[in-house]
């Protein structure tokens, strides 16, 4: 079974000394956990200002770079316009509306999201940072945009099930769905094709979700979707139901 971690961070992070501070260390971590590949956000995109720091992401056959974009008025964001994102055609982009202080559903950003939706480029949003209300507002405003919700935590299962039910373009990362039986419960509510294996490592734990993947009480086909298939469909631009 192919296992793809849809949420990892490469580079130094505040508050810890992590093996994935460099590419070699990240690859060792992936090998340790038996993870075939990963979608990787550069830490400078999260902990720096993309308006000033936007070096190229890691290049490696096992990694899918996920750049952090910042939709803003000219000169205050990155890149200058959404057309540059569409031209670069990343597998997925990430945005941090709270951390980087921009309006996720303001007029500038909405124009970007419409262009990304038309180009079938998905957006990753950290629910721990942005909150599910912002995700819901965006999914309502731009229903054709596919959104991967990162790190939702284990306390908002009711809201997540409702969000997935109402918005077919929304997917959820599983790593922090930590309540007992949460992954199976949400798979029954929304379908395994809406759940994406990811960990958020090294900020969040990767060992537990990886171990859990081997012991999910779901049909093999559902586990394979969660392990890699759902993200493959997400990045391939398969249309929402």
């Amino acid at each position: 079974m192919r296992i793809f971690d849809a949420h990892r961070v490469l580079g130094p992070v505040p508050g810890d000394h992590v093996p994935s501070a460099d590419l070699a260390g990240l690859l060792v971590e992936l090998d340790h956990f038996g993870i075939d590949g990963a979608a990787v956000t550069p830490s400078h995109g999260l902990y720096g200002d993309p308006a000033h720091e936007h070096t190229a992401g890691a290049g490696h056959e096992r990694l899918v770079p996920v750049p952090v974009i910042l939709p803003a008025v000219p000169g205050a964001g990155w890149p200058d316009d959404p057309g540059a994102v569409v031209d670069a055609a990343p597998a997925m982009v990430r945005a941090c509306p709270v951390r980087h202080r921009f309006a996720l559903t303001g007029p500038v950003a909405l124009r970007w999201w419409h262009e990304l939706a038309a180009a079938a480029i998905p957006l990753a949003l950290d629910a721990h940072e942005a909150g599910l209300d912002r995700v819901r507002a965006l999914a309502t405003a731009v229903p054709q945009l596919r959104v991967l919700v990162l790190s939702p935590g284990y306390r908002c299962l009711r809201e997540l099930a409702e969000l997935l039910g109402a918005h077919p373009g929304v997917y959820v990362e599983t790593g922090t769905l930590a309540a007992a039986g949460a992954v199976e419960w949400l798979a029954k509510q929304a379908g395994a094709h809406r759940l994406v294996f990811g960990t958020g490592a090294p900020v969040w734990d990767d060992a537990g979700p990886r171990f859990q993947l081997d012991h999910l009480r779901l049909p093999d086909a559902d586990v394979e979707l969660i392990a890699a298939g759902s993200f493959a469909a997400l990045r391939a631009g398969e249309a929402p139901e």
Partner: protein
Amino acid sequence: MSRTTDVRGPVIDAHGHVGGWADFFVPEPDATWLVDVNTEIGIDVVGVSHLVAVGRDAAAGNELALAEAERYPGRIGVWLVADPHRPDAVAPLRDQLERPGVWGLKLHPDTHECAVTDPRYEPLLELAAAAGVPVLSHGQTRSPYSDPGDLAEVARRHSTLPVLVGHAGLWQDGFDRAARLAAAHPNLYLEICGSRLTTRWLERLVAVAGADRVLFGTDACFLDPRLGLGKVRHARLSDADRALVLGGNAARLLGRRLTIASQETP
């Protein structure tokens, strides 16, 4: 993949619960699911406090937990929740401590809004010390109720009482301090459940506090036991250290009170 499954000795989850909780939805709150999953993944026994006891009614909730231990002997043990607000708490707890499957007392200073160093906890701590049972407390760095430093103070006051710092203090920025406190207090232990712990931090806890001072826990059913076990399975620990964390330390602290169904002779 690096597999680390060569574990010698029992696997004992030192921190579990059963029951629902008001703050958020728990899909699998029942003991049956917990025992079934534990069987599948190799957890021999889990010590639980019932969330009714934690949240509002210690007396009723403790009876619910005892009923689950009776239903699943050797698969579920009981931490009796000690409520510091009940002036009559000691007598029934003394009786319940003699019931089969009871491991010790569980303190929830934050939920009960009473600092673990408060005099109202003293009779309960003295009861545990006299009975020779450990105390597992919720532990939360910077909490006015359960900071690991305050739990260390309890350990100082009751030098024969094993005090387990639940969650090892919960927050990553307090793990190193909690580990140093455990290293400095021979009866202070770190129980590791929690969503913020990573294998990296587990390895550091073991390195600083010592493998004989760290106990495996999952916080089931708040948290999924597969996640907690995965951290210990995948941590870069020696087999001997892993065995201590997974169950050796708990078995030593619980002594004759520990019954493990999978080790009983038919």
